[in-house]
């Protein structure tokens, strides 16, 4: 099973399609970000409200800034926020989930209540609260704030799985074979959770990018850097939808949706490989 995991993933159509879309967008963003001159993103670099054309591939906004250069920066920043928040969230969630599930007792009781609370409250509200207090966040700062609330879902899932895994007979067998608790966790339990954690990482990336765009649309995003959420914020602030500047909001919405769909496909691919029972069903 271990042998073929990556192989099976690569054979999964959803995973491959999602992977390709994601990489294309990200690489496109990085390359464009590196090559397009920075001055194109300054106010008045072009005539304002220019539709896509020869002069500027994706057109310009109301202030004469190039959409292409903004989009490139936004993709890089938004994905960065997603990845950092997801990584921290998944790792912290894993530590909390394993502690809670494997050791049980009073620690588990406290952690369980915390998880329940964090899961039933929309994290966006707390994010609004924190972000509104910290005026002028940066991209990294935003990633950290989002990570604060990204640990609970993986923690709960991992806890539940550890609870059932540790009752499995192979854990008894490992104890009988003289393995220590730490060895049991790392060599018997973690392999079972590793695949799940990678799937969760993808999911958490998606959620973090979603949270970023939501916060930014409410005006809580980084004011001096561009993210996909901030692009929508500016587009909405300048009423791009009502002024027919479809290229402005359209290109952003398209990019954001493509990222979501690619990550979701990746997640589905992981899911099908991890739970073959579901594979044939949906």
């Amino acid at each position, binding site marked *: 099973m271990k042998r073929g995991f990556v192989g099976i993933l690569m054979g999964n159509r959803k995973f491959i399609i999602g992977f390709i879309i994601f990489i294309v967008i990200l690489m496109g963003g990085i390359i464009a970000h590196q090559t397009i001159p920075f001055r194109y993103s300054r106010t008045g670099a072009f005539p304002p409200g220019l539709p896509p054309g020869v002069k500027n591939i994706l057109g310009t906004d109301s202030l004469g800034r190039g959409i292409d250069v903004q989009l490139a920066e936004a993709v890089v920043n938004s994905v960065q926020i997603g990845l950092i928040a997801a990584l921290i969230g998944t790792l912290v969630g894993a530590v909390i989930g394993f502690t809670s599930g494997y050791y049980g007792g009073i620690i588990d009781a406290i952690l369980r*209540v*915390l998880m*329940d*609370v964090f*899961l*039933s*409250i*929309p*994290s*966006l*509200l*707390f994010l*609004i*609260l*924190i972000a*509104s*207090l*910290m*005026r002028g966040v940066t991209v990294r700062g935003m990633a950290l704030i989002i990570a604060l609330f990204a640990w609970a879902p993986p923690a709960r899932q991992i806890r539940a799985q550890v609870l059932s895994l540790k009752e499995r007979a192979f854990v008894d067998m490992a104890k009988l074979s003289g393995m220590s608790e730490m060895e049991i966790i790392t060599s018997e339990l973690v392999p079972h959770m590793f695949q799940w954690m990678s799937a969760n990482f993808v999911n958490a990336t998606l959620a973090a990018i*979603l949270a970023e*765009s*939501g916060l930014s*649309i*409410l*005006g*809580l995003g980084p004011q001096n850097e561009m993210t996909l959420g901030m692009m*929508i914020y500016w587009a*909405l602030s300048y009423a791009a*939808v*009502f002024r*027919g500047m*479809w290229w402005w*909001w359209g290109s952003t*919405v398209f990019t*954001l*949706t493509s990222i*979501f*769909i690619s990550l*979701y496909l990746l997640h*589905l691919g992981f899911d099908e490989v991890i739970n073959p*029972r*579901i594979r*044939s*069903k*949906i």
Partner: protein
Amino acid sequence: MWLYLRYVFGRFAIFIITIFIAITIVFIVPRFVPGDPLFAVTSKLAEMGGSRGSPELVEEYRKLFGLDQPVLTQYLYYLKELSKGNLGYSIANFPATVTELLMRSLPWTIGLLSVATVISWLIGTFIGAISGWGGKESKISKVLVPLALGLYTIPYYILAIILIFLFVYVWGIFPISGGYTPGFPIKFSLPFVLDVIKHSILPALSIILISLGWWFLSMRSMIVLLQGEDYILLAQAKGLSDRRILWRYAFRNALLPQVSGLAISLAHIVGGAIILEKIFAYPGVGWLLYNSITELDFPTIQGGVLVVIIALTAANFILDLIYPLIDPRIKYKRG
């Protein structure tokens, strides 16, 4: 019965703990975030002292938060005022209190959300059940599944932007924004209700379409999984009609996770709806929050966040109470 009461008691305890933790976080956050935002707020108050506000406001604010007291005293004081429903004064809309502002905007949000959620939950659950029962090969599934997957992936507000573009900019069918036409007399009359409905169709549609994808998919996969259950097989062996097996055997069992799913995704829906209100300038809590953010009206942000959390937790608690009524087993589960 005794077991049910114990269950209710357990859920109630979680409910109280959740609210308590939420209050505590809302209280603590401003005091630990770097840059001393409370100081910033008071200085902003002082700035406004000459014009719109008054020393009276600054005084009120100090009193409510007891800023010169130790943190613990402040906390107890905060709890005490909260229990009286006192959330302080809005800075941007002084002399209105936060509670007044919230009371004005909360009905809009709750109305929009409850109607939209119920509609999408019902439609998604029923279509999902039928599609799941028909299996992978059925024609409706082949069309609906990819569609639902697509919808489920898109955030509410992205769909909202697209809907506005189509229905407002291109076709001009619906009003641009707001909860009702400005200047319309706010009273319970038919024209006003119709006006409100007309304004709420697009925001509601965004929520319905997006969460429909989720309800559809989760119900569908539940039904598909249940088809392998022994009791479904026995029902078939009993010669029951397909319709009876679907609705009395598969559907009733699949409904249980669907209801608990409702509890979990409420948080998600509420979060999305707040941003949605900003886009539609819909006069609910989301719009209030957005305006408070731009105007640095910190007491209103704090109050709004708290009230939405409490409303949401209460909704979850009610769902918890309903759950045992449809699942006879839950009363006996421990913890």
